């Protein structure tokens, strides 16, 4: 391996290095920039500048050669990423191709990656629900994983901090399961969704359906204008990158902000090989970086290292950072690195029809939909499985042209004059189930097989268990019952038997905990054994709960960045 450290060491020395510029790394960069910390922000992918590098963002449907569909050859060459709902002709340039980084599936796992500056923050579903203590206290109450070293009160101010800057729209719903935050006005539910929400309150009392909080700017504020961001235009073309900055991404928000501070240097095309550990000093001193194009290796140095490479790669970097002191991976005295890996169970769904409100339909667009907060096993154990699930919910009215009109002028006129909706409303829900982290669900490195960068190949041993299967049945039964009580008919349940991964909520492997013997990180996201290394992305998750996790990683990153700065002042 060529080690070309031509430039002098001083030029390659910073106060902080952040590995990864997605939602969590971007937040660390923003905080360090604001706090005057000289920071190097690394990303393995190419640079994606806000607006300038969104090539499809303003393309009209007829400007896509295949009208949005990807060629068969692309699908055949990329069987994994091709399963992702957001992967299309308008967004394929923001997804890593399968060949970029092959991996071993000891058990099937669909690993979806976004390798560019901004990472998956360009592609995420932008749903941002806070955790509550019902979530943080889960492992301790129910006896799985280890106790979280933090509680809601530790994170609440940081949720507020990131919500105010990122822009989160939502209603003040007053639910203890899903704490309210610093919200811009929420988006409307439609008439059938409101009917369902009302019915749930009447019938159950403790089951709710709300407008999901989303990271979209619904009302202009000076703090967004200052970032160069405008209100969301309801385009629902978010996966192309938003020219308005209407939704939060690192690219539209934290990264340009951090760069403007003059304290942060962005270095794209930098694949991190490992963290450098100095045995004498007893701390990490920097990172080894492989140039994505030349494959040359260069070292960069800093007092503090933040690993925000997205859950799987943050694990991989620590596993590959071996030394005499840490032969099994950096900070891995406990032996739990890579283990207790978990995800969200998205396998099940329920759909139905509703015969009411037939004189109504919807017009325009909105960037969110309905959300059913977890109601199972919240205050006490009620079922023969642990934990519970949240649900997505939406109602929509069909309509459109009669495709079976006779060819010729009948067909032409039918297409040009779509019939008003005359069928029933359709409603649907999808499951977001908590999975229980366990030792037997793990990721590891195969050091005999090297990827195109010469890095060890990742292998996945992650699967569902009996708890997940029971939860699927319960979700289907409970949602069906709720639909039935709301007067919905034609109810059908599904289990698509997808393998783990497509939820794109992979978590754990570098879990937080109070005890260095059973966890990797302390309550401030520092490696117990190497306190100048922080991990604040999905890898740090002790348990998964049911909420879309990105908001929590953002709050973690901001909190940990402030902690690191306070520590340096001591």
């Amino acid at each position: 391996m060529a080690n070309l450290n031509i430039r002098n060491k001083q030029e390659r020395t910073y106060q902080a290095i952040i590995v990864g510029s997605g939602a969590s790394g971007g937040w660390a960069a923003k905080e360090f920039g604001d706090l005057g910390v000289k920071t190097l922000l690394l990303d393995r992918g190419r640079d994606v500048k806000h607006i300038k590098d969104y090539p499809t963002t303003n393309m009209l449907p007829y400007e896509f050669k295949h009208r949005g569909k990807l060629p068969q050859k692309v699908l055949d060459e990329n069987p994994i990423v091709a399963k992702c709902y957001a992967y299309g002709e308008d967004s394929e340039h923001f997804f890593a191709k399968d060949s970029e980084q092959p991996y071993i599936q000891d058990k099937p796992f669909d690993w979806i990656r976004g390798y560019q500056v901004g990472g998956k923050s360009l592609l995420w579903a932008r749903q941002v629900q806070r955790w509550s203590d019902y979530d943080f206290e889960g492992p301790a109450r129910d006896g799985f994983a280890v106790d979280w070293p933090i509680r809601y009160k530790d994170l609440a101010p940081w949720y507020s901090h990131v919500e105010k800057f990122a822009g989160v729209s939502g209603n003040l719903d007053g639910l203890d399961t899903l704490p309210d935050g610093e919200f811009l006005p929420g988006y409307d539910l439609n008439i059938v969704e409101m009917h369902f929400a009302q019915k749930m309150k009447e019938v159950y009392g403790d089951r709710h359906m709300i407008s999901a909080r989303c990271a979209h700017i619904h009302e202009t504020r000076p703090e967004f204008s200052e970032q160069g961001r405008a209100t969301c235009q309801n385009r629902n073309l978010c996966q192309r990158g938003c020219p308005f900055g209407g939704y939060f991404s690192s690219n539209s928000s934290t990264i340009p902000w951090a760069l403007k501070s003059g304290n942060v240097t962005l270095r794209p095309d930098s694949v991190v090989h490992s963290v450098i550990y100095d045995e004498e000093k007893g701390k990490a001193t920097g990172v080894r970086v492989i140039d994505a194009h030349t494959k040359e290796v260069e070292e960069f140095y800093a007092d503090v290292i933040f690993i925000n490479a997205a859950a799987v790669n943050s694990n991989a970097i620590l596993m590959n950072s071996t030394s005499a002191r840490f032969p099994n991976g950096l900070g891995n005295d406990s032996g739990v690195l890579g283990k207790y890996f978990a995800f969200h169970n998205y396998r099940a769904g329920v759909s139905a029809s509703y015969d009411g409100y037939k004189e109504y339909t919807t017009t325009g667009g909105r960037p969110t939909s309905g959300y059913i907060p977890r109601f199972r096993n919240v205050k006490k154990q009620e079922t023969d499985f642990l934990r519970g699930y949240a649900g997505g919910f939406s109602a929509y009215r069909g309509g459109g042209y009669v495709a079976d009109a006779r060819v010729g002028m009948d067909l032409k006129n039918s297409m040009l004059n779509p019939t008003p909706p005359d069928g029933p409303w359709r409603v649907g829900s999808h499951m977001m189930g908590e999975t229980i982290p366990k030792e037997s669900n793990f990721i590891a490195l195969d050091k005999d097989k090297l990827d195109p960068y010469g890095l060890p190949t990742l292998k996945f041993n992650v699967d569902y268990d009996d708890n997940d299967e029971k939860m699927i049945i319960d979700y289907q039964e409970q949602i069906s019952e709720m639909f039935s009580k709301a007067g919905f008919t034609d109810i059908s349940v599904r289990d698509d038997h997808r393998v783990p991964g497509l939820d794109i909520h992979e978590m754990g492997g570098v879990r937080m905990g109070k005890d260095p013997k059973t966890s990797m990180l302390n309550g401030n996201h520092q490696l117990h054994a190497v306190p100048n290394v922080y991990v604040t992305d999905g890898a740090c998750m002790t348990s998964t709960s049911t909420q879309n996790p990105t908001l929590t990683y953002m709050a973690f990153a901001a909190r940990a960045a402030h902690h690191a700065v306070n520590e340096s002042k001591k």
Partner: protein
Amino acid sequence: MNRRIALRHLALISGGLALIPSCDFSSDDILAAYENLKVTTSQKQLLGAISDSIIPAGELKGALELEVPDFILVMVNDCMTAENQVLFSTGLAAFPAYAKNTVGKKFDQLSSREKEDLIQGGIDLQPAETPEGEKDRAISYFLNTTKKLTMQGYMASEYIQTEIIPYSLIPGPYNGAALISENQKPRING
């Protein structure tokens, strides 16, 4: 302009013009732009005529004038499995004989109404699970695919989406309780 778009533009500029050189000038030239299909010039003309029967010109332009046949061939060439490409090509090649056998005339000798009847009949075919049914299966697949792609290519054309039913990248704020009766649009005569 990134490389992908540049290449695409190049493909669009050169598409349909490049012909594989053939020594036998009496045979139909195979169009090289659709490399996964063996489509000849005359077959493309036939496809154009079929798509123009599916969506004919009237007060508004028809499928042929909007170059829908090019779109169909691009989609079949790029976005279909090899198996379905064979089925499509087989159906296209078999269509002249199908016309002869069904109505006793060549397709281009039929009136507009007869052409529509023939196509609709092929779309509605219920091919038997027998060796004889194989040919019907190809005809049915070819015509159903052509109809579906003609509809898509027509409605998602620049002409329709700019001049007839303008497409907006900004759909406006959400109304979750819009009365259908207040949402009627003026009729468009095709």
